[in-house]
């Protein structure tokens, strides 16, 4: 029996990718008759003396980006593997299914997207439950660690802790990896560095929130780093979806009346899409600390409130590269050119 998996090897994308990142489709795990943890162990063994971050993906489920946009597909398990080893206490993390509740829709208005035809009835995975976090209760991060590798924020930031390298993959990029589409790879740059901090409040979110709601609401900044927010992640490489993909998913939120700064995060990408699409932005609800960060990358209230031509949905998507700021020295790759499909002996 063989287990199929995808891997973006260290050195891919003209040397930009600093460490191995493997992705396993839940369907392939089930076909091989394995548990998610067993499948990660199989990948670890297949890599011999190498190391990798591993994401287990359920492509029939949904997840939520940090700024509150629902995405197709979900990370349902993460692992760090090194020399075939997975740390027994911290090396694997199951990401819990979160059941639907009316209370969630009330407390987390961005989750109204779940009720749309795009996502209705699909299983939701974001962050781990208290039970799935296990003995991580004193820890801050939703992270796995084994040997040299850390896999953080439920599989969106992975690191080699010895070489001290890191790469990010916003979820839409991971979806492209799994579906063989296209990705853009480059440095996150100041705009993405700021955008990552503009989160929404959730229970059991990918990054924030446990049994209680995360304390950073739409319009706030989790970075809260003033003018330094644009530097905190600007130098890390990132694997992102093409901007027209990001636009499509974000417009679905704007189409149902979700308002940046009130219901969904005030990231530069979301704000610029809303402006181009002529949708309301709750500038009054964006916190002063968030404005400092936005203004540091040129997103001012004056700019957002200035008159501009309102584009149609089609025009926004067609012009997404011009509308959405962010990423530096970015280059578009066919996933087939940076990602290998391998088969590991079970």
């Amino acid at each position, binding site marked *: 029996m063989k287990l199929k998996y995808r891997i973006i090897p260290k050195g891919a994308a003209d040397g930009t990718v600093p460490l191995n990142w493997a992705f396993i489709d839940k369907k392939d795990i089930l076909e091989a008759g394995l548990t998610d943890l067993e499948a990660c162990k199989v990948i670890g063994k297949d890599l011999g003396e190498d190391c990798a971050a591993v994401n287990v993906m359920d492509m029939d489920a949904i997840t939520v980006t940090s700024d509150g946009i629902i995405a197709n597909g979900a990370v349902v398990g993460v692992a760090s593997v090194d*020399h075939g080893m997975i740390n027994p206490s911290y090396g694997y993390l199951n990401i819990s299914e979160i059941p639907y509740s009316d209370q969630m829709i009330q407390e987390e208005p961005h989750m109204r997207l779940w009720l749309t035809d795009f996502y209705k009835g699909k299983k939701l995975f974001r962050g781990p439950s208290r039970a799935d976090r296990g003995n991580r209760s004193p820890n*801050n991060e939703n992270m796995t660690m084994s040997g040299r590798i850390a896999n953080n924020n439920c599989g969106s930031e992975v690191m080699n*802790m010895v070489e001290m390298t890191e790469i990010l993959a916003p979820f839409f990029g991971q979806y492209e990896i799994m579906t063989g589409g296209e990705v853009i790879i480059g440095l996150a740059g100041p705009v993405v560095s700021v955008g990552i901090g503009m989160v929404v409040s959730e229970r059991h979110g990918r990054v924030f929130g446990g049994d209680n709601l995360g304390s950073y609401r739409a319009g706030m900044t989790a970075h809260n780093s003033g003018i330094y927010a644009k530097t905190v992640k600007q130098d890390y490489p990132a694997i992102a979806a093409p901007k027209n993909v990001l636009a499509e998913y974000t417009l679905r939120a704007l189409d149902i009346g979700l308002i940046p700064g009130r219901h969904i995060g005030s990231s530069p990408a979301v704000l610029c899409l809303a402006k181009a699409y002529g949708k309301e932005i709750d500038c009054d609800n964006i916190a002063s600390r968030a404005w400092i960060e936005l203004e540091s990358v040129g997103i001012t209230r004056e700019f957002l409130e200035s008159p501009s031509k309102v584009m149609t949905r089609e025009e926004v998507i067609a012009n997404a590269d011009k509308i959405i700021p962010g990423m530096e020295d970015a280059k578009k790759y066919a996933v087939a050119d940076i990602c290998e499909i391998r088969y590991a002996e079970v």
Partner: protein
Amino acid sequence: MKFMHTRLPDFYTKIEAAAKKRNPETGFSVSGLENVKTAKLASLRVGRVEDEISEITEDDDIKKVEVVLTTDNPETLYTVVIKGIQEDGTCKKVILENMMLSAPTVETHLFGVKEVIDRRTNIKK
């Protein structure tokens, strides 16, 4: 009660003595607590470690013992103390902040090792 926990300097003395008990020529090093200047260590674990160091030196192939103390939980939480010092050297103001540090796990010490005897307890496996 004074024997319940061992002084840090005594720990260093004891484990080096254990490494050299069978053969004074056995090499020895200890690392991992360089930033810890004063501490008390659980005495029963000190005794176990001494005994285990003695045990590992019974293998004639082993010429040196390296003792590494690494955090069991690789994500350690720190408090950052930002001190504002006045001209006379006194501290006028402090800002406290959290810092989370993720470090390589114990597996980095196990690469290529033929025999790993895990005697830790209360570790989820």
